[in-house]
Protein backbone atom coordinates (compact mmCIF):
# COMPACT_ATOMS: atom_id res chain seq x y z
CA UNK A 1 0.00 0.00 0.00
CA UNK A 2 1.46 3.35 -0.90
CA UNK A 3 0.67 6.94 -0.14
CA UNK A 4 -1.01 7.71 -3.42
CA UNK A 5 -3.50 4.93 -2.93
CA UNK A 6 -4.16 6.04 0.64
CA UNK A 7 -4.71 9.58 -0.55
CA UNK A 8 -7.10 8.41 -3.27
CA UNK A 9 -9.07 6.41 -0.75
CA UNK A 10 -9.22 9.22 1.79
CA UNK A 11 -10.40 11.61 -0.91
CA UNK A 12 -13.04 9.18 -1.97
CA UNK A 13 -14.41 8.81 1.56
CA UNK A 14 -14.47 12.56 2.19
CA UNK A 15 -16.33 13.04 -1.08
CA UNK A 16 -18.81 10.38 -0.07
CA UNK A 17 -19.73 12.28 3.07
CA UNK A 18 -20.04 15.55 1.19
CA UNK A 19 -22.29 13.82 -1.30
CA UNK A 20 -24.57 12.61 1.43
CA UNK A 21 -25.21 16.21 2.44
CA UNK A 22 -25.93 17.26 -1.12
CA UNK A 23 -28.30 14.34 -1.47
CA UNK A 24 -30.10 15.28 1.73
CA UNK A 25 -30.89 18.67 0.18
CA UNK A 26 -32.04 17.02 -3.02
CA UNK A 27 -34.26 14.58 -1.17
CA UNK A 28 -35.77 17.37 0.84
CA UNK A 29 -36.45 19.42 -2.27
CA UNK A 30 -37.76 16.39 -4.14
CA UNK A 31 -40.28 15.58 -1.44
CA UNK A 32 -41.55 19.15 -1.66
CA UNK A 33 -42.20 18.81 -5.40
CA UNK A 34 -44.08 15.52 -5.13
CA UNK A 35 -47.62 16.06 -6.33
CA UNK A 36 -50.34 16.07 -3.73
CA UNK A 37 -50.39 17.22 -0.20
CA UNK A 38 -49.58 15.39 3.00
CA UNK A 39 -52.77 16.37 4.73
CA UNK A 40 -54.95 15.35 1.80
CA UNK A 41 -53.18 12.03 1.45
CA UNK A 42 -53.48 11.20 5.12
CA UNK A 43 -57.18 11.92 5.26
CA UNK A 44 -57.78 10.26 1.89
CA UNK A 45 -60.88 10.50 -0.21
CA UNK A 46 -62.89 11.49 2.83
CA UNK A 47 -61.16 14.76 3.75
CA UNK A 48 -63.11 17.88 4.60
CA UNK A 49 -61.58 21.31 4.05
CA UNK A 50 -61.71 22.09 7.74
CA UNK A 51 -59.95 18.90 8.76
CA UNK A 52 -57.35 19.52 6.03
CA UNK A 53 -56.57 23.02 7.27
CA UNK A 54 -56.33 21.80 10.87
CA UNK A 55 -54.00 18.98 10.01
CA UNK A 56 -51.77 21.23 7.90
CA UNK A 57 -51.40 23.71 10.71
CA UNK A 58 -50.74 20.98 13.26
CA UNK A 59 -47.99 19.46 11.15
CA UNK A 60 -46.22 22.76 10.62
CA UNK A 61 -46.63 22.55 6.88
CA UNK A 62 -47.06 26.31 6.81
CA UNK A 63 -43.44 26.99 7.92
CA UNK A 64 -40.91 27.98 5.23
CA UNK A 65 -39.04 25.09 3.61
CA UNK A 66 -35.57 26.22 4.70
CA UNK A 67 -36.56 26.24 8.36
CA UNK A 68 -38.01 22.78 8.04
CA UNK A 69 -34.88 21.48 6.29
CA UNK A 70 -32.52 22.61 9.03
CA UNK A 71 -34.78 21.40 11.80
CA UNK A 72 -34.85 18.05 10.11
CA UNK A 73 -31.11 17.82 9.46
CA UNK A 74 -30.35 18.86 13.02
CA UNK A 75 -32.62 16.13 14.31
CA UNK A 76 -31.03 13.45 12.12
CA UNK A 77 -27.53 14.36 13.29
CA UNK A 78 -28.66 13.75 16.85
CA UNK A 79 -30.21 10.44 15.86
CA UNK A 80 -33.71 11.82 16.07
CA UNK A 81 -35.65 11.24 12.90
CA UNK A 82 -38.84 12.68 14.29
CA UNK A 83 -42.25 11.06 14.36
CA UNK A 84 -44.29 9.88 11.43
CA UNK A 85 -47.01 12.36 10.52
CA UNK A 86 -49.47 9.68 9.63
CA UNK A 87 -49.49 7.62 12.82
CA UNK A 88 -47.32 9.49 15.32
CA UNK A 89 -44.88 6.63 15.76
CA UNK A 90 -41.20 7.21 16.34
CA UNK A 91 -39.53 6.91 12.93
CA UNK A 92 -36.13 5.78 14.15
CA UNK A 93 -37.45 2.73 15.98
CA UNK A 94 -39.91 1.57 13.31
CA UNK A 95 -37.29 2.20 10.65
CA UNK A 96 -34.65 0.20 12.48
CA UNK A 97 -36.91 -2.85 12.70
CA UNK A 98 -37.68 -2.67 8.99
CA UNK A 99 -34.06 -2.05 8.07
CA UNK A 100 -32.99 -5.11 10.04
CA UNK A 101 -35.44 -7.25 8.08
CA UNK A 102 -34.27 -5.84 4.77
CA UNK A 103 -30.61 -6.39 5.67
CA UNK A 104 -31.34 -9.92 6.88
CA UNK A 105 -32.89 -10.86 3.56
CA UNK A 106 -30.23 -9.02 1.56
CA UNK A 107 -27.41 -10.64 3.51
CA UNK A 108 -28.54 -14.24 3.01
CA UNK A 109 -29.43 -13.65 -0.61
CA UNK A 110 -26.04 -12.07 -1.30
CA UNK A 111 -24.28 -14.87 0.52
CA UNK A 112 -25.76 -17.35 -1.91
CA UNK A 113 -25.99 -15.28 -5.07
CA UNK A 114 -22.63 -13.53 -5.29
CA UNK A 115 -20.31 -16.57 -4.97
CA UNK A 116 -22.66 -18.62 -7.12
CA UNK A 117 -22.65 -15.98 -9.85
CA UNK A 118 -18.88 -15.71 -9.87
CA UNK A 119 -18.37 -19.48 -9.89
CA UNK A 120 -20.87 -19.87 -12.72
CA UNK A 121 -19.10 -17.06 -14.56
CA UNK A 122 -15.74 -18.79 -14.20
CA UNK A 123 -17.18 -22.11 -15.32
CA UNK A 124 -18.79 -20.42 -18.32
CA UNK A 125 -15.42 -18.97 -19.35
CA UNK A 126 -13.67 -22.28 -18.84
CA UNK A 127 -16.15 -24.04 -21.10
CA UNK A 128 -16.67 -21.08 -23.37
CA UNK A 129 -19.17 -21.76 -26.15
CA UNK A 130 -19.58 -25.35 -25.10
CA UNK A 131 -22.72 -26.75 -23.52
CA UNK A 132 -22.08 -25.74 -19.87
CA UNK A 133 -21.62 -22.16 -21.00
CA UNK A 134 -24.75 -22.24 -23.12
CA UNK A 135 -26.83 -23.87 -20.38
CA UNK A 136 -25.71 -21.36 -17.77
CA UNK A 137 -26.29 -18.40 -20.07
CA UNK A 138 -29.67 -19.61 -21.27
CA UNK A 139 -31.06 -20.35 -17.83
CA UNK A 140 -29.85 -17.16 -16.20
CA UNK A 141 -31.05 -15.07 -19.14
CA UNK A 142 -34.49 -16.57 -18.95
CA UNK A 143 -34.65 -15.98 -15.21
CA UNK A 144 -33.64 -12.36 -15.56
CA UNK A 145 -36.04 -11.55 -18.37
CA UNK A 146 -39.09 -12.72 -16.46
CA UNK A 147 -40.65 -9.96 -14.40
CA UNK A 148 -39.76 -10.47 -10.75
CA UNK A 149 -43.35 -11.00 -9.59
CA UNK A 150 -43.64 -13.73 -12.20
CA UNK A 151 -40.65 -15.63 -10.81
CA UNK A 152 -42.04 -15.10 -7.30
CA UNK A 153 -45.51 -16.43 -8.14
CA UNK A 154 -44.11 -19.47 -9.91
CA UNK A 155 -41.88 -20.39 -6.96
CA UNK A 156 -44.76 -19.71 -4.58
CA UNK A 157 -47.07 -21.90 -6.62
CA UNK A 158 -44.75 -24.89 -6.64
CA UNK A 159 -42.96 -24.73 -3.31
CA UNK A 160 -45.66 -23.27 -1.08
CA UNK A 161 -49.01 -24.23 -2.58
CA UNK A 162 -48.25 -27.52 -4.33
CA UNK A 163 -45.42 -29.01 -2.30
CA UNK A 164 -45.95 -27.12 0.95
CA UNK A 165 -42.22 -27.04 1.71
CA UNK A 166 -42.04 -23.36 2.56
CA UNK A 167 -44.60 -20.81 3.76
CA UNK A 168 -45.97 -18.47 1.10
CA UNK A 169 -46.33 -15.69 3.63
CA UNK A 170 -42.90 -14.59 4.84
CA UNK A 171 -43.94 -12.30 7.65
CA UNK A 172 -41.18 -12.18 10.24
CA UNK A 173 -41.53 -10.64 13.67
CA UNK A 174 -39.50 -9.91 16.77
CA UNK A 175 -38.57 -12.95 18.77
CA UNK A 176 -39.10 -15.33 15.87
CA UNK A 177 -36.76 -18.34 16.17
CA UNK A 178 -33.85 -18.28 13.73
CA UNK A 179 -34.82 -21.50 11.99
CA UNK A 180 -38.36 -20.22 11.36
CA UNK A 181 -36.93 -17.01 10.05
CA UNK A 182 -34.75 -18.88 7.58
CA UNK A 183 -37.75 -20.93 6.44
CA UNK A 184 -39.71 -17.74 5.99
CA UNK A 185 -37.14 -16.04 3.80
CA UNK A 186 -36.40 -19.14 1.71
CA UNK A 187 -38.73 -18.27 -1.14
CA UNK A 188 -38.06 -14.53 -1.34
CA UNK A 189 -34.32 -15.18 -1.14
CA UNK A 190 -34.54 -17.78 -3.91
CA UNK A 191 -36.53 -15.41 -6.10
CA UNK A 192 -34.05 -12.59 -5.55
CA UNK A 193 -31.12 -14.90 -6.25
CA UNK A 194 -32.61 -15.86 -9.59
CA UNK A 195 -33.17 -12.20 -10.42
CA UNK A 196 -29.67 -10.93 -9.68
CA UNK A 197 -27.67 -14.00 -10.67
CA UNK A 198 -27.62 -13.43 -14.42
CA UNK A 199 -26.36 -9.88 -14.28
CA UNK A 200 -23.34 -10.67 -12.11
CA UNK A 201 -22.60 -13.94 -13.84
CA UNK A 202 -22.63 -12.40 -17.31
CA UNK A 203 -20.42 -9.51 -16.29
CA UNK A 204 -17.92 -11.91 -14.72
CA UNK A 205 -17.85 -13.93 -17.89
CA UNK A 206 -17.49 -10.94 -20.21
CA UNK A 207 -14.89 -9.18 -18.09
CA UNK A 208 -12.73 -12.29 -17.87
CA UNK A 209 -13.04 -12.95 -21.58
CA UNK A 210 -11.89 -9.40 -22.16
CA UNK A 211 -8.56 -10.04 -20.50
CA UNK A 212 -8.13 -13.65 -21.64
CA UNK A 213 -6.34 -12.50 -24.79
CA UNK A 214 -3.79 -10.44 -22.90
CA UNK A 215 -0.18 -11.39 -23.24
CA UNK A 216 0.22 -12.39 -19.61
CA UNK A 217 -2.60 -14.87 -19.79
CA UNK A 218 -1.06 -16.45 -22.84
CA UNK A 219 2.25 -16.53 -21.01
CA UNK A 220 0.59 -18.35 -18.17
CA UNK A 221 -0.90 -20.75 -20.63
CA UNK A 222 2.48 -21.35 -22.16
CA UNK A 223 3.81 -22.06 -18.70
CA UNK A 224 1.46 -25.02 -18.84
CA UNK A 225 -1.08 -23.96 -16.24
CA UNK A 226 -4.49 -25.58 -16.49
CA UNK A 227 -7.82 -23.97 -17.49
CA UNK A 228 -9.61 -22.96 -14.32
CA UNK A 229 -6.37 -22.13 -12.57
CA UNK A 230 -5.37 -19.58 -15.19
CA UNK A 231 -8.77 -18.04 -15.10
CA UNK A 232 -8.87 -17.85 -11.32
CA UNK A 233 -5.26 -16.81 -10.68
CA UNK A 234 -4.46 -14.62 -13.65
CA UNK A 235 -7.52 -13.46 -15.54
CA UNK A 236 -10.00 -12.90 -12.74
CA UNK A 237 -7.94 -10.51 -10.58
CA UNK A 238 -7.50 -8.23 -13.57
CA UNK A 239 -11.16 -8.11 -14.42
CA UNK A 240 -12.34 -7.34 -10.92
CA UNK A 241 -13.29 -3.70 -11.45
CA UNK A 242 -16.37 -4.13 -13.67
CA UNK A 243 -17.43 -7.22 -11.71
CA UNK A 244 -17.27 -5.37 -8.40
CA UNK A 245 -19.31 -2.56 -9.87
CA UNK A 246 -21.99 -4.92 -11.03
CA UNK A 247 -21.99 -6.76 -7.70
CA UNK A 248 -22.45 -3.44 -5.92
CA UNK A 249 -25.31 -2.44 -8.20
CA UNK A 250 -27.01 -5.69 -7.31
CA UNK A 251 -26.34 -5.42 -3.61
CA UNK A 252 -27.84 -1.95 -3.71
CA UNK A 253 -30.83 -3.44 -5.50
CA UNK A 254 -31.22 -5.98 -2.69
CA UNK A 255 -31.53 -3.18 -0.17
CA UNK A 256 -33.37 -0.57 -2.19
CA UNK A 257 -35.31 -2.27 -4.94
CA UNK A 258 -37.04 -5.32 -3.56
CA UNK A 259 -40.43 -3.79 -2.93
CA UNK A 260 -42.23 -6.08 -5.38
CA UNK A 261 -40.82 -9.16 -3.66
CA UNK A 262 -41.77 -7.71 -0.29
CA UNK A 263 -45.35 -7.24 -1.46
CA UNK A 264 -45.67 -10.70 -2.95
CA UNK A 265 -44.19 -12.54 0.01
CA UNK A 266 -45.55 -10.13 2.62
CA UNK A 267 -42.09 -9.41 3.94
CA UNK A 268 -41.92 -6.37 6.24
CA UNK A 269 -38.93 -4.56 4.76
CA UNK A 270 -37.98 -1.00 3.98
CA UNK A 271 -39.42 -0.91 0.46
CA UNK A 272 -43.03 -1.40 1.46
CA UNK A 273 -42.50 1.00 4.34
CA UNK A 274 -41.30 3.68 1.91
CA UNK A 275 -44.09 3.13 -0.61
CA UNK A 276 -46.80 3.37 2.04
CA UNK A 277 -45.38 6.60 3.33
CA UNK A 278 -44.85 8.07 -0.13
CA UNK A 279 -48.49 7.36 -0.85
CA UNK A 280 -49.49 9.16 2.34
CA UNK A 281 -46.99 11.97 1.65
CA UNK A 282 -45.50 11.32 5.06
CA UNK A 283 -42.55 13.58 4.34
CA UNK A 284 -40.34 12.91 7.40
CA UNK A 285 -40.43 9.16 6.78
CA UNK A 286 -39.84 9.50 3.04
CA UNK A 287 -36.88 11.74 3.77
CA UNK A 288 -35.45 9.37 6.36
CA UNK A 289 -35.80 6.31 4.16
CA UNK A 290 -34.58 8.27 1.14
CA UNK A 291 -31.48 9.26 3.08
CA UNK A 292 -30.82 5.67 4.09
CA UNK A 293 -31.18 4.49 0.51
CA UNK A 294 -28.86 7.26 -0.65
CA UNK A 295 -26.33 6.28 2.00
CA UNK A 296 -26.48 2.68 0.78
CA UNK A 297 -25.79 3.70 -2.81
CA UNK A 298 -23.09 6.18 -1.94
CA UNK A 299 -21.46 3.75 0.46
CA UNK A 300 -21.54 0.83 -1.96
CA UNK A 301 -20.30 2.94 -4.86
CA UNK A 302 -17.49 4.11 -2.62
CA UNK A 303 -16.55 0.55 -1.74
CA UNK A 304 -16.66 -0.39 -5.43
CA UNK A 305 -14.36 2.48 -6.33
CA UNK A 306 -11.92 1.66 -3.56
CA UNK A 307 -11.82 -2.02 -4.51
CA UNK A 308 -11.22 -1.00 -8.13
CA UNK A 309 -8.34 1.22 -7.08
CA UNK A 310 -6.83 -1.56 -5.02
CA UNK A 311 -7.35 -4.15 -7.74
CA UNK A 312 -5.77 -2.19 -10.53
CA UNK A 313 -2.08 -3.06 -10.50
CA UNK A 314 -1.11 0.02 -12.45
CA UNK A 315 -2.90 2.26 -10.02
CA UNK A 316 -1.38 0.42 -7.11
CA UNK A 317 2.08 0.72 -8.53
CA UNK A 318 2.16 3.89 -10.59
CA UNK A 319 5.25 4.52 -12.61
Amino acid at each position, binding site marked *: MNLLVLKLIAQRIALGILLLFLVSILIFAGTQILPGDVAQSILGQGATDQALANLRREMGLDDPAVTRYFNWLGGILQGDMGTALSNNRDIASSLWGRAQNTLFLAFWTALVAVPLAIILGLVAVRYQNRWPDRAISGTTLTAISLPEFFVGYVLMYFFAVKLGWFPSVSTVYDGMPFADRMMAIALPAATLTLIILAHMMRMTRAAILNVMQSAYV*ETAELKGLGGLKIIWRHAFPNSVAPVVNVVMLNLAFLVVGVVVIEVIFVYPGLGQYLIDHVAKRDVPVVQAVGLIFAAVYIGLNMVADIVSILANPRLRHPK
Partner: protein
Amino acid sequence: MKYLRTIPITALLGTALTGMFLFAAIFAPWIAPYGMSEVVGDMWEPSSAQFLLGTDNLGRDLLSRMIYGAQTTILIASLATLLAFTMGSVLGILAAVLGGWMDQVMSRGVDILMSIPTLIFALVVLSVMPSTMLVLILVMGILDSTRVYRISRAVAVDVNVQDFVEVARLRGEGNSWIVFREILPNALSPLVAELGLRFIFAVLFLSSLSFLGLGVQPPEADWGSMVRENRQGIVFGVPAALIPAGAIALLAISVNLVADWILRRTTDLKGGRGG
Protein backbone atom coordinates in the same frame (compact mmCIF):
# COMPACT_ATOMS: atom_id res chain seq x y z
CA MET B 1 -12.33 -12.11 -42.56
CA LYS B 2 -12.91 -15.63 -41.44
CA TYR B 3 -15.58 -14.71 -38.88
CA LEU B 4 -18.02 -13.80 -41.66
CA ARG B 5 -17.90 -17.30 -43.02
CA THR B 6 -18.27 -18.88 -39.62
CA ILE B 7 -21.31 -17.14 -38.21
CA PRO B 8 -22.35 -19.65 -35.55
CA ILE B 9 -25.78 -21.20 -35.62
CA THR B 10 -26.73 -19.52 -32.33
CA ALA B 11 -26.03 -16.09 -33.78
CA LEU B 12 -28.11 -16.92 -36.84
CA LEU B 13 -30.94 -18.04 -34.60
CA GLY B 14 -30.67 -14.89 -32.53
CA THR B 15 -30.70 -12.69 -35.61
CA ALA B 16 -33.67 -14.56 -37.06
CA LEU B 17 -35.71 -14.25 -33.87
CA THR B 18 -34.83 -10.60 -33.39
CA GLY B 19 -35.78 -10.03 -37.03
CA MET B 20 -39.09 -11.76 -36.48
CA PHE B 21 -39.92 -9.55 -33.51
CA LEU B 22 -38.96 -6.46 -35.48
CA PHE B 23 -41.12 -7.59 -38.39
CA ALA B 24 -44.10 -8.06 -36.09
CA ALA B 25 -43.52 -4.64 -34.58
CA ILE B 26 -43.25 -2.81 -37.88
CA PHE B 27 -46.12 -4.49 -39.70
CA ALA B 28 -48.42 -4.85 -36.70
CA PRO B 29 -51.56 -3.29 -38.25
CA TRP B 30 -51.35 -5.66 -41.23
CA ILE B 31 -50.65 -8.95 -39.51
CA ALA B 32 -52.70 -8.64 -36.31
CA PRO B 33 -55.95 -10.60 -36.70
CA TYR B 34 -57.97 -8.21 -34.49
CA GLY B 35 -57.76 -4.64 -33.31
CA MET B 36 -55.57 -3.83 -30.36
CA SER B 37 -58.37 -2.78 -28.02
CA GLU B 38 -61.23 -4.71 -29.59
CA VAL B 39 -63.11 -6.90 -27.10
CA VAL B 40 -63.82 -10.07 -29.03
CA GLY B 41 -64.40 -12.87 -26.54
CA ASP B 42 -64.74 -13.87 -22.94
CA MET B 43 -61.98 -13.39 -20.37
CA TRP B 44 -59.02 -15.78 -20.48
CA GLU B 45 -60.30 -18.09 -23.18
CA PRO B 46 -57.88 -20.88 -23.99
CA SER B 47 -56.20 -20.88 -27.36
CA SER B 48 -58.40 -21.91 -30.24
CA ALA B 49 -58.56 -21.61 -34.01
CA GLN B 50 -60.32 -18.29 -33.54
CA PHE B 51 -57.87 -16.91 -30.99
CA LEU B 52 -54.49 -18.53 -31.55
CA LEU B 53 -53.09 -17.53 -28.17
CA GLY B 54 -56.40 -17.23 -26.34
CA THR B 55 -57.78 -14.01 -24.90
CA ASP B 56 -56.58 -11.67 -22.18
CA ASN B 57 -58.11 -10.42 -18.94
CA LEU B 58 -60.72 -8.35 -20.75
CA GLY B 59 -61.47 -10.74 -23.58
CA ARG B 60 -59.21 -9.14 -26.17
CA ASP B 61 -57.27 -11.29 -28.62
CA LEU B 62 -53.91 -11.97 -27.00
CA LEU B 63 -52.04 -12.53 -30.27
CA SER B 64 -53.12 -9.16 -31.61
CA ARG B 65 -52.14 -7.45 -28.37
CA MET B 66 -48.79 -9.20 -28.43
CA ILE B 67 -48.13 -7.98 -31.96
CA TYR B 68 -49.10 -4.40 -31.16
CA GLY B 69 -47.28 -4.67 -27.86
CA ALA B 70 -44.08 -5.54 -29.74
CA GLN B 71 -44.17 -2.06 -31.24
CA THR B 72 -44.19 -0.08 -28.02
CA THR B 73 -41.99 -2.54 -26.15
CA ILE B 74 -39.20 -2.74 -28.69
CA LEU B 75 -39.33 0.92 -29.68
CA ILE B 76 -39.21 2.38 -26.17
CA ALA B 77 -36.82 -0.17 -24.72
CA SER B 78 -34.32 -0.01 -27.57
CA LEU B 79 -34.28 3.77 -27.79
CA ALA B 80 -33.91 4.10 -24.03
CA THR B 81 -31.09 1.54 -24.02
CA LEU B 82 -29.39 3.25 -26.92
CA LEU B 83 -29.56 6.58 -25.13
CA ALA B 84 -28.33 5.06 -21.89
CA PHE B 85 -25.43 3.45 -23.66
CA THR B 86 -24.25 6.33 -25.75
CA MET B 87 -24.43 8.68 -22.83
CA GLY B 88 -23.20 6.30 -20.15
CA SER B 89 -20.27 4.76 -21.99
CA VAL B 90 -18.95 7.91 -23.64
CA LEU B 91 -19.14 9.93 -20.44
CA GLY B 92 -17.77 7.05 -18.38
CA ILE B 93 -14.73 6.55 -20.60
CA LEU B 94 -14.22 10.28 -20.88
CA ALA B 95 -14.21 10.54 -17.10
CA ALA B 96 -11.56 7.83 -16.90
CA VAL B 97 -9.43 9.50 -19.57
CA LEU B 98 -9.70 13.01 -18.18
CA GLY B 99 -9.32 11.99 -14.55
CA GLY B 100 -8.88 14.65 -11.87
CA TRP B 101 -11.68 16.96 -10.90
CA MET B 102 -13.71 16.42 -14.08
CA ASP B 103 -13.85 12.74 -13.21
CA GLN B 104 -14.86 13.53 -9.65
CA VAL B 105 -17.60 15.96 -10.65
CA MET B 106 -19.12 13.55 -13.16
CA SER B 107 -18.80 10.48 -10.98
CA ARG B 108 -20.24 12.11 -7.89
CA GLY B 109 -23.06 13.60 -9.97
CA VAL B 110 -23.88 10.09 -11.07
CA ASP B 111 -23.70 8.89 -7.46
CA ILE B 112 -26.29 11.49 -6.55
CA LEU B 113 -28.58 10.54 -9.40
CA MET B 114 -28.31 6.88 -8.45
CA SER B 115 -28.91 7.45 -4.79
CA ILE B 116 -32.33 8.96 -5.27
CA PRO B 117 -34.77 6.06 -5.20
CA THR B 118 -35.85 5.40 -8.78
CA LEU B 119 -39.49 5.39 -7.79
CA ILE B 120 -39.35 8.88 -6.32
CA PHE B 121 -37.25 10.16 -9.20
CA ALA B 122 -39.67 8.83 -11.80
CA LEU B 123 -42.67 10.08 -9.83
CA VAL B 124 -41.30 13.58 -9.51
CA VAL B 125 -40.19 13.92 -13.11
CA LEU B 126 -43.18 12.29 -14.71
CA SER B 127 -45.64 14.18 -12.55
CA VAL B 128 -44.16 17.47 -13.69
CA MET B 129 -43.79 16.47 -17.33
CA PRO B 130 -46.43 14.95 -19.56
CA SER B 131 -46.29 11.19 -19.84
CA THR B 132 -45.39 11.06 -23.53
CA MET B 133 -43.23 8.45 -25.20
CA LEU B 134 -40.35 10.90 -25.57
CA VAL B 135 -40.32 11.80 -21.88
CA LEU B 136 -40.52 8.12 -21.00
CA ILE B 137 -37.53 7.29 -23.17
CA LEU B 138 -35.55 10.21 -21.75
CA VAL B 139 -36.29 9.34 -18.14
CA MET B 140 -35.52 5.66 -18.62
CA GLY B 141 -32.40 6.41 -20.66
CA ILE B 142 -30.97 8.87 -18.18
CA LEU B 143 -31.68 6.69 -15.15
CA ASP B 144 -30.09 3.71 -16.84
CA SER B 145 -27.10 5.64 -18.14
CA THR B 146 -25.88 6.10 -14.56
CA ARG B 147 -25.42 2.34 -14.24
CA VAL B 148 -23.69 2.10 -17.60
CA TYR B 149 -21.49 5.03 -16.67
CA ARG B 150 -20.17 3.30 -13.59
CA ILE B 151 -19.29 0.12 -15.39
CA SER B 152 -17.69 1.74 -18.40
CA ARG B 153 -15.68 4.06 -16.20
CA ALA B 154 -14.48 1.10 -14.14
CA VAL B 155 -13.39 -0.80 -17.25
CA ALA B 156 -11.86 2.29 -18.84
CA VAL B 157 -9.78 3.16 -15.80
CA ASP B 158 -8.10 -0.22 -16.11
CA VAL B 159 -7.55 0.12 -19.84
CA ASN B 160 -6.40 3.71 -19.52
CA VAL B 161 -3.22 2.74 -17.71
CA GLN B 162 -2.24 0.10 -20.27
CA ASP B 163 0.88 0.72 -22.34
CA PHE B 164 -0.81 1.19 -25.68
CA VAL B 165 -2.91 4.05 -24.36
CA GLU B 166 0.17 5.78 -23.04
CA VAL B 167 1.86 5.26 -26.36
CA ALA B 168 -1.08 6.90 -28.09
CA ARG B 169 -0.95 9.75 -25.65
CA LEU B 170 2.77 10.21 -26.27
CA ARG B 171 1.99 10.23 -29.99
CA GLY B 172 -0.06 13.32 -29.18
CA GLU B 173 -3.51 11.91 -29.94
CA GLY B 174 -6.50 13.96 -28.73
CA ASN B 175 -9.02 12.81 -26.13
CA SER B 176 -11.62 11.79 -28.67
CA TRP B 177 -9.09 9.52 -30.41
CA ILE B 178 -8.20 7.94 -27.12
CA VAL B 179 -11.85 7.46 -26.14
CA PHE B 180 -13.12 6.10 -29.43
CA ARG B 181 -10.06 4.45 -30.97
CA GLU B 182 -8.05 3.19 -28.04
CA ILE B 183 -10.27 2.55 -25.06
CA LEU B 184 -13.74 1.85 -26.46
CA PRO B 185 -12.65 -1.14 -28.60
CA ASN B 186 -10.80 -2.60 -25.63
CA ALA B 187 -13.65 -2.07 -23.21
CA LEU B 188 -16.26 -3.33 -25.59
CA SER B 189 -16.88 -6.84 -24.38
CA PRO B 190 -18.08 -6.02 -20.85
CA LEU B 191 -20.10 -3.18 -22.34
CA VAL B 192 -21.78 -5.37 -24.92
CA ALA B 193 -22.59 -7.94 -22.25
CA GLU B 194 -24.16 -5.12 -20.27
CA LEU B 195 -26.05 -3.84 -23.31
CA GLY B 196 -27.99 -7.05 -23.76
CA LEU B 197 -29.10 -7.01 -20.14
CA ARG B 198 -29.86 -3.31 -20.01
CA PHE B 199 -32.29 -3.80 -22.88
CA ILE B 200 -34.16 -6.38 -20.86
CA PHE B 201 -34.10 -4.19 -17.76
CA ALA B 202 -35.62 -1.41 -19.86
CA VAL B 203 -38.48 -3.70 -20.92
CA LEU B 204 -39.14 -4.62 -17.29
CA PHE B 205 -38.74 -1.07 -16.01
CA LEU B 206 -41.30 0.10 -18.54
CA SER B 207 -43.81 -2.34 -17.11
CA SER B 208 -43.26 -1.13 -13.55
CA LEU B 209 -43.75 2.44 -14.71
CA SER B 210 -47.00 1.44 -16.38
CA PHE B 211 -48.04 -0.16 -13.13
CA LEU B 212 -47.50 3.12 -11.29
CA GLY B 213 -49.62 4.81 -13.93
CA LEU B 214 -46.65 6.54 -15.53
CA GLY B 215 -45.94 4.33 -18.52
CA VAL B 216 -47.71 3.66 -21.77
CA GLN B 217 -51.33 4.85 -21.81
CA PRO B 218 -54.08 2.24 -22.14
CA PRO B 219 -55.39 0.66 -24.29
CA GLU B 220 -51.85 0.48 -25.66
CA ALA B 221 -49.67 -1.90 -23.75
CA ASP B 222 -46.14 -3.18 -23.58
CA TRP B 223 -45.35 -6.80 -22.89
CA GLY B 224 -44.32 -6.26 -19.31
CA SER B 225 -47.64 -4.58 -18.57
CA MET B 226 -49.44 -7.45 -20.26
CA VAL B 227 -47.79 -9.89 -17.88
CA ARG B 228 -48.95 -7.67 -15.07
CA GLU B 229 -52.51 -7.35 -16.35
CA ASN B 230 -52.84 -11.11 -16.47
CA ARG B 231 -50.77 -11.96 -13.41
CA GLN B 232 -53.63 -13.24 -11.28
CA GLY B 233 -54.02 -16.18 -13.61
CA ILE B 234 -50.48 -17.44 -12.98
CA VAL B 235 -51.13 -19.51 -9.87
CA PHE B 236 -54.22 -21.00 -11.46
CA GLY B 237 -52.41 -22.10 -14.58
CA VAL B 238 -53.90 -19.55 -16.99
CA PRO B 239 -51.32 -19.10 -19.76
CA ALA B 240 -52.25 -15.49 -20.58
CA ALA B 241 -49.41 -14.11 -18.44
CA LEU B 242 -47.00 -16.78 -19.55
CA ILE B 243 -47.11 -15.75 -23.20
CA PRO B 244 -45.92 -12.15 -22.89
CA ALA B 245 -43.41 -13.29 -20.23
CA GLY B 246 -42.14 -15.94 -22.60
CA ALA B 247 -41.93 -13.37 -25.38
CA ILE B 248 -39.76 -11.12 -23.23
CA ALA B 249 -37.53 -14.05 -22.38
CA LEU B 250 -37.26 -15.05 -26.03
CA LEU B 251 -36.47 -11.49 -27.03
CA ALA B 252 -33.89 -11.33 -24.24
CA ILE B 253 -32.23 -14.51 -25.35
CA SER B 254 -32.16 -13.62 -29.02
CA VAL B 255 -30.81 -10.13 -28.37
CA ASN B 256 -28.17 -11.61 -26.12
CA LEU B 257 -27.25 -14.29 -28.64
CA VAL B 258 -26.54 -11.52 -31.09
CA ALA B 259 -24.66 -9.61 -28.40
CA ASP B 260 -22.59 -12.69 -27.57
CA TRP B 261 -21.65 -13.07 -31.18
CA ILE B 262 -20.57 -9.44 -31.42
CA LEU B 263 -18.68 -9.96 -28.20
CA ARG B 264 -16.82 -12.90 -29.66
CA ARG B 265 -16.08 -10.97 -32.82
CA THR B 266 -14.52 -8.20 -30.82
CA THR B 267 -12.38 -10.58 -28.79
CA ASP B 268 -11.33 -12.27 -32.03
CA LEU B 269 -10.44 -8.94 -33.52
CA LYS B 270 -7.96 -8.31 -30.80
CA GLY B 271 -5.95 -11.26 -32.03
CA GLY B 272 -5.31 -14.09 -29.66
CA ARG B 273 -7.02 -17.41 -30.07
CA GLY B 274 -9.81 -17.92 -32.54
CA GLY B 275 -13.42 -18.43 -31.37
